[in-house]
């Protein structure tokens, strides 16, 4: 494949055609904030945290789904980007009920970590405090919709690594929700193989192991990447 040359934060880099800005930036040692991105599954550009500026294009583009092109001039950090990232994080916190103090993922949550690393000291928007349920019908796992940010990582790992297709997104906008099968209790799902990949992929406390309490949910993301590498590249060592 042809190589493309581009500039990221003033740094000249070259990469193969078809690579995304996020992949190239990561290889170049530039760290972008991400939330819906997960190593091992394809990107969807859902969370808008990896937005970057590309010279000549007025709107901001998600680094995870934008392919590189020859001569591209990318900026991953600016006053404007920081402003939008913080706004996005605040809106995520305002949309559902993320009460960090009583969350299974407290201390191991990607949303929480991003919030403080982006300097979010409070949320300027009114909290919408919607009423969402907790599905604790599965014998091994639970789903707390209050803490879901709709990144759809669980849906992607369920369909494309496990191949079970249990998890889906139903509805639109703020009312969108993660469902099991045909929107039935998770415990009644006939397709769920109880593999736990969705739990492993969740960035917040939305998916958890039954019985876990505050701060107990730790996850090992590298396991998902390991499975994908083993399958696709026949690399069996982590």
């Amino acid at each position: 494949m042809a190589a493309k040359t581009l500039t990221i934060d003033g740094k000249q880099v070259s990469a193969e055609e078809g690579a995304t800005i996020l992949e190239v930036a990561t290889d170049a040692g530039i760290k972008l904030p991400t939330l819906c991105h997960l190593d091992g599954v394809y990107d969807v550009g859902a969370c808008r945290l990896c937005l970057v500026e590309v010279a000549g294009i007025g709107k901001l583009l998600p680094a995870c789904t934008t392919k590189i092109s020859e001569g591209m001039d990318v900026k991953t950090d600016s006053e404007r980007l920081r402003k939008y990232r913080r706004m996005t994080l605040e809106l995520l916190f305002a949309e559902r009920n993320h009460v960090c103090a009583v969350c299974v993922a407290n201390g191991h949550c990607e949303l929480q970590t991003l919030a403080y690393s982006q300097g979010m000291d409070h949320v300027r928007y009114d909290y919408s405090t919607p009423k969402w349920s907790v599905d604790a019908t599965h014998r091994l796992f639970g789903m707390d919709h209050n803490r879901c940010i709709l990144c759809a990582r669980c849906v992607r790992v369920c369909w494309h690594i496990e191949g079970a297709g249990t998890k889906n997104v139903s509805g639109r906008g703020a009312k969108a929700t993660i469902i099991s099968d045909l929107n039935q209790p998770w415990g009644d799902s006939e397709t769920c193989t109880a593999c736990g990949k969705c739990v492993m992929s969740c960035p917040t406390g939305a998916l958890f192991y039954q019985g876990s309490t505050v701060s107990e949910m730790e996850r090992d993301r590298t396991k998902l990447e390991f499975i994908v590498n083993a399958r696709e590249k026949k690399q069996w060592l982590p």
Partner: protein
Amino acid sequence: MKLRVATVWLGGCSGCHMSFLDLDEFLIELAGKIDLVYSPIMDVKEYPKNVDVCLIEGAVCNEDNLEILHTIRERTKVLVSFGDCAVTGNVPAIRNQLGLSNDENVLQRAYIENAQDNSSLPKAEGILPLLLKRVVPVHEAVYVEYFLPGCPPPAGRIKALMVQVLGGQTPKLEGTQLKFG
């Protein structure tokens, strides 16, 4: 001149004040630099005038909280939202999920549905403050200068902020010092 400092306890568990007491020997240093003029750990009935800094623990849950908050804003130069309940609403704000008349629903749930004996709603006009329709973080009720998140904020984080305030700087917390929860 010593800074006139106050701390106040609204709808919270007092954990932030416990964490404040965890400042240990720094409290002695602090005592030399500030005048504590109002606090739940001292016996002063009325919020005084001309306060320099007030640390506010807890969310705004009832009419008393709201009233004193307006007094505080009027009489204080710098307000600090002290801990997650003040900053986000946190656990006290969970009742907001019960809908628009959650102030009634939450009492119903606690004092009627879950009561074993003598189920009745607590009512004492002029003594028990009425619950607000919605629990809100402090900055939704009055303007707040600085935010000190954490449940509770660890003593080191409180110290970091106090040192900056005492030094006359604009307090700036960064990274893990801004962690919620």
